[in-house]
């Protein structure tokens, strides 16, 4: 099963084009991501998208919070928790990275290395990510849109994150962050690129499973009373 939790959502027509392209290349599920300002508007497209894409591909919406204010991130996550199948926060700022991996209401820390000279993660943040079940997201687009020295630096940051992942085993997800049909590749190409940068095939497979697990976990999140305790409806 090939899951992509971060395809940049835009208008209805572009979303349909990208979804059709992703389906024809073999993706099973995609999430259109919108930032906190556009998310409510995006939810109104859901019915029309279902009409057009029902037999083609599974889709859902990701809330992508982009802010450097930790309180704003916390409030936005709490506000949209019940409406978004996945909440991710764009990283890069050390305070934001730290606050996100400590918040179990957030699913994904996206691109902790963004605009940095290092990976943006260390052993302390890695342990927090494991404890709070926050996934770290690496984006294919960061490799695609850079070249020469910047691309080498992105690959170097990826490798640092792979090393921490191998030691601490925090959830890792891979996504395309595609903006148009030009950025969508076949899942096999996607796997090849990450395997060439040094990620093991088992870890890549596990990353798709992690994406699936995030969506499944969030379906039942409102029934969670405590971590590990869930209200069930069936009377057995």
């Amino acid at each position, binding site marked *: 099963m090939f899951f992509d939790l971060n395809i940049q959502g835009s208008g209805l027509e572009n979303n349909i084009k990208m979804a059709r392209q992703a389906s024809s*290349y073999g993706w099973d599920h995609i999430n259109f991501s919108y930032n906190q300002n556009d998310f409510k508007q995006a939810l109104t497209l859901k019915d029309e998208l279902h009409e057009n894409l029902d037999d083609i591909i599974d889709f859902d919406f990701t809330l992508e919070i982009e802010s450097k204010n930790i309180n704003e991130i916390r409030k936005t996550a709490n506000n949209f928790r019940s409406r978004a199948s996945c909440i991710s926060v764009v990283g890069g700022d050390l305070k934001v990275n730290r606050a996100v991996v400590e918040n179990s209401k957030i699913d994904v820390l996206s691109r902790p290395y963004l605009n940095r000279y290092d990976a943006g993660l260390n052993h302390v943040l890695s342990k927090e990510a494991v404890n709070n079940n926050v996934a770290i997201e690496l984006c294919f687009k960061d490799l695609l849109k850079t070249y020469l020295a910047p691309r080498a630096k992105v690959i170097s940051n990826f490798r640092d994150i792979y090393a921490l992942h191998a030691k601490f085993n925090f959830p890792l997800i891979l996504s395309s962050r595609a903006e*148009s049909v030009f950025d*969508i590749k076949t899942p096999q190409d996607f796997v090849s690129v990450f*395997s060439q940068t040094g990620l093991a095939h088992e870890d890549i497979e596990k990353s798709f499973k992690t994406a699936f697990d995030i969506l499944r976990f969030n379906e039942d999140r409102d029934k969670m009373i405590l971590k590990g305790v869930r209200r069930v409806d069936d009377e057995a």
Partner: protein
Amino acid sequence: MRLKVLPPTLRKNSRYLTVDIKITSPISKDDLVTIIWDACIRFKGECETSNFYLWVMKFYDLEKTDDYYHYKAIVRCQRGFVEEVRSSLALVNRHEGRKISMTVVGLSGTIKSSQKYI
């Protein structure tokens, strides 16, 4: 005088990749050859690319949509280096200022069987 053809045991084994190409302006087969070689040399370097045994076998001009020109091609590479070639092609983003996207949609051992992906 031409060289005598190598016996099968001494020949390199090939794999044929069916490549899906989208670009915002028209290209020829020669342009594609340049794009593929540049992509491989840029991502994997000169020394590694020398193992790839690259050759564009066939080039198909399929359609023109509102957003892009759509082509497909069958590209030969050496067995054992498929992942390297795939990743290099997937990372092509621009060619002479034009947006381009390349992705491998099929992998076969013969040209004939790779044509089913066209």
